[in-house]
């Protein structure tokens, strides 16, 4: 460690307890950072593409997750290294922003770091490299815009959307029934989408799962599924044309928020209080009945007495329904959430064609289906599968597919997948590099090289000869001037991604390149790492 000394040979104390801290600076720091970033990228590299492998993660509590979703892997990996954490953040922000391509972005960043390392060894200043990368990423993004296609779809013609979702799902374990899942995802998104404003609120899609059955049984329900059952075992299990009162007040005596005491000091008071209490329960139930509700959904619990009164008046009820679910029910049935019994009016009731209770398997699991709602803008995707890990992974895959469909509705530009977009960008960047005088030229070329790494990884994972395949595809692209040539991962026999129907969204791809470049720039700029040493 470098220490500064004053005139008398005593060390300056700059950092508290500086002897106990490890410190890396200059080129060493950059190299250490780069190697950490590369290590993370290496882990994810094998998960890329339709033939990518899964990772098995065991959490601190011993729960097992099996996934090939980049964001999930990194999130659960429990990394300790600062730079590694940056990469985790990178993948997460891609997940938040786009929802798909979380693996690709990390692999891309890893490739950029690898190229940067080589340039650093040649003595090029990190800031120059960073600037070069920045320029190159702009070229690539513009180029993507140029080769992108717009495609048309409407609420009746959803085929193009389904195709794109299938590309996303084909890299997941659920690819066995990617067609049906993709259709489910697209239908769900179209159902809740506001095509006028090109906006989709994914909160309206509830993804729920239950173990058992098989993946093919996964279904889209135009309505809501709630993991609850009727509050009284003898209430009817099936209600047609239900009018639903959605309440957020408990069927219990009121609890004023202000501190108060009711003092009982005479027998009369005791008795009036008792009558009050009975009347209170009676009133509550009567009010629900009066407005014509045939089903009560409540966020809170019921008192035994209230429960029986409900049963008695033939008013089925569900209790302890979560806040989010309550909102969804309100949206779906067109009802209003009512916070007080006094405010209950017939207009505020929600309507549903059919409410039924369905039981599963041999245990006492029951779920409540609310279907044929007045407003079908809230839907539920109900996943079945052989085991817990499968359900979880399917949930993640469906989430990705939903995000992709949403992005397409927002912006209907697509680029072709299978690495073809990356190869095309790489050619464009390479060609542009020569026009830049100065050191940046090298960085731009390096950027082009690192773009190649994604198709390379795809080919590798698919068991093809990476270098041979890549160079063949590249020359084909230049020769035919066709930006749709990619890696034939599924061994279909054609390189043209247009024929294979492999699409990705334009914004997803652009975002990948921009985010990866940003993170790499940030990592390159670090030249000093100070960390508390082990003790």
């Amino acid at each position: 460690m470098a220490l500064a000394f004053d005139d008398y040979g005593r060390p300056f104390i700059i950092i508290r307890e500086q002897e106990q801290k490890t410190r890396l600076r200059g080129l060493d720091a950059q190299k250490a950072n780069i190697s950490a970033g590369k290590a993370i990228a290496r882990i994810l590299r094998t998960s890329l593409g339709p033939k990518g492998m899964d990772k098995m993660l065991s959490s601190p509590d011993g729960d097992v997750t099996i996934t090939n979703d980049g964001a999930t892997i990194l999130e659960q990996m429990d990394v300790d290294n600062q730079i590694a954490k940056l990469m985790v953040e990178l993948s997460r922000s891609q997940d938040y922003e786009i929802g798909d391509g979380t693996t690709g972005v990390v692999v891309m960043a890893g490739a950029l770091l690898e190229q940067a390392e080589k340039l650093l060894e040649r003595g090029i200043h990190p800031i120059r490299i960073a600037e070069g990368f920045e320029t190159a990423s702009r070229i690539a993004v513009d180029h993507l815009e140029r080769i992108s296609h717009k495609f048309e779809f409407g609420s009746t013609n959803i085929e193009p959307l389904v195709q794109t979702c299938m590309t996303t799902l084909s890299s997941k374990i659920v690819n066995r029934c990617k067609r049906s899942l993709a259709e489910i995802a697209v239908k769900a998104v179209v159902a809740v989408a506001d095509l006028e404003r090109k906006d989709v609120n994914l909160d309206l899609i509830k993804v729920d799962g239950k173990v058992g059955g098989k993946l093919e049984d996964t279904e889209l329900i135009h309505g809501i599924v709630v993991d609850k059952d009727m509050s009284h075992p003898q209430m009817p299990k099936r209600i047609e044309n239900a009018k639903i009162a959605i309440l957020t007040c408990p069927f219990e005596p009121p609890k004023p928020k202000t501190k108060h005491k009711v003092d009982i000091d005479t027998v009369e008071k005791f008795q009036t209080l008792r009558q009050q209490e009975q009347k209170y329960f009676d009133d509550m139930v009567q009010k629900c009945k009066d407005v014509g509700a045939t089903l009560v959904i409540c966020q809170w619990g019921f008192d035994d007495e209230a429960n029986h009164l409900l049963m008695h008046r033939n008013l089925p009820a569900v209790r302890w329904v979560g806040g989010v679910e309550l909102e969804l029910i309100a949206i779906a049935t067109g009802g209003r959430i009512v916070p007080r019994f006094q405010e209950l009016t017939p207009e505020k009731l929600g309507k549903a064609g059919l409410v039924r209770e369905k039981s599963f398997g041999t245990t006492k699991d029951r779920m409540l289906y609310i279907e044929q709602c007045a407003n079908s803008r809230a839907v539920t995707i109900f996943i079945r599968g052989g085991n817990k890990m499968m359900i979880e992974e399917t949930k993640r895959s469906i989430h990705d597919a939903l995000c992709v469909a949403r992005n397409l509705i927002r912006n209907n530009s697509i680029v072709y997948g299978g690495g073809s977009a990356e190869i095309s960008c790489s050619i464009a960047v390479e060609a542009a590099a020569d026009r830049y005088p100065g050191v940046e030229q090298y960085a731009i070329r390096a950027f082009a090289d690192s773009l190649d790494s994604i198709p390379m990884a795809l080919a590798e994972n698919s068991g093809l000869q990476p270098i041979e395949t890549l160079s063949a595809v590249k020359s084909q692209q230049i020769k035919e001037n066709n930006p749709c040539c990619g890696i034939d991962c599924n061994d279909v026999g054609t390189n043209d991604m247009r024929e294979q129907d492999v699409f990705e969204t334009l914004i997803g791809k652009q975002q990948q390149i921009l985010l990866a470049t940003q993170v790499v720039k940030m990592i390159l700029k670090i030249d000093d790492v100070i960390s508390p040493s082990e003790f």
Partner: protein
Amino acid sequence: MAIDKLLKDEATEEKGERARMSSFVGAMAIADVVKTTLGPKGMDKILQSAGRGQSVTVTNDGATILKSLHIDNPAAKVLIDISKVQDDEVGDGTTSVVVLAGELLREAEKLVAVKIHPMTIISGYRMAAECARDALLKKVMDNKEDAEKFKSDLMKIAMTTLSSKILSQDKEHFSKLAVEAVMRLKGSTNLEAIQIIKKAGGSLRDSFLDEGFILDKKIGIGQPKRIENANILIANTAMDTDKVKIYGARVRVDSMSRVAEIEGAEKEKMREKVQKIIAHGINCFVNRQLIYNFPEELFADAGIVAIEHADFDGIERLALVTGGEIASTFDNPESVKLGHCKLIEEIMIGEDKLIHFSGVEMGQACTIILRGASFHVLDEAERSLHDALCVLSQTVVDSRVLLGGGWPEMVMAKEVDELARKTPGKKSHAIEAFSRALQAIPTIIADNAGLDSAELIAQLRAEHHKEGSNAGIDVISGAVGDMEKLGISEAFKVKQAVLLSATEAAEMILRVDEIITCAPRRREDRM
């Protein structure tokens, strides 16, 4: 370099071949644990819990064994999970599903060793599983139309399920019990309505199904022990001190006499409540909550049997059987539905007194009394009976039936083999492997019975080459036999679930090429 500190301390990472190896080994180890319990001659396991009391469980139920194991290997956890799901979903076949998944992975390991890529194996397995399911679908029998035949199917399934359990000695007796109990449910799958009461003493053969209902409770003191033509009010209400539920209410008095007055009022209130309850014209009152001495005394005075503290399930079942509703308010006696039964009496089983409701209106619930020599026997008997009940109740819903004794596996294996011959490419190796894994199940059944498995399987395969063969392993005589004649049947739903979830799990484990284990969470205090 910073690189070797990528993960937190104690976190480990296994890659590529090593990761695959570790998951294969883990999965196969789990399969080997439960392997010996498979089939009618399978052995039991003793499980000793590590907790306080070191309680001992003797079982051969796959799900129970696996649930109690503490496993570190993540792949093994996947297998345990599928077994649990199988238990929840169909109730039986919990061992088979793990064994099949284990065998699939064992075969996959061999293929990986000869450098076939896991993805190729997976696509082969998928094709094979699809083909096997179709083969089963072609062979199913459905006797739903014919009530007589359907009942005999149920009987056969129950016998087949029970023959691998502790109850195998009295399997006919218990199959009858189980079938009757399930038929009473009339198509519902709510097994909660079947109550199993375990009482040590007597022998397993003394177990019986009671068409009425038995509540494991005592009748209050000084009340009649026998009521004929009972009207029952089933309630869930506080019969101790009926609190004022309005928030913040409290009693504040300034003299002792006031206290007495309030106390009097409280008593009066309770008396009124009791009066209201009596006004329903009942002679039996069952409450979920406690009944204090004072109201109990009042009930005794009115000649009403008051039963306190019947648990939630008990109340629900009683409501189902007697057709009454569960009441919490008593102001409108005319509209509350009361339950009825012909006779309520206190009976003795072993040394315990129970309350017996007989001649009930709706027979949707029933009680099975299990007797046995020790708690372990009873526990295991309950589990076995539960398995049988689960399978039966599922079969009532989905009435498709297959033959048992390794017959379905051989049928599937044959079809899958045929598919392998037709399929070009490396996949066909995987498909062949799938068929071998299927055949491993009858092999294990034969091995467990101490038979010459190689010889038997070869015979079986030859037998199955003929069209429409019903051949399977007859463990009792130790030879290949006609399963239809022997009356060994299994539910289609169970077999299908075994096939699909085993394949799914194997696929999942095969796809893994890296295992990352996080540092275990530190606990403050260890037991």
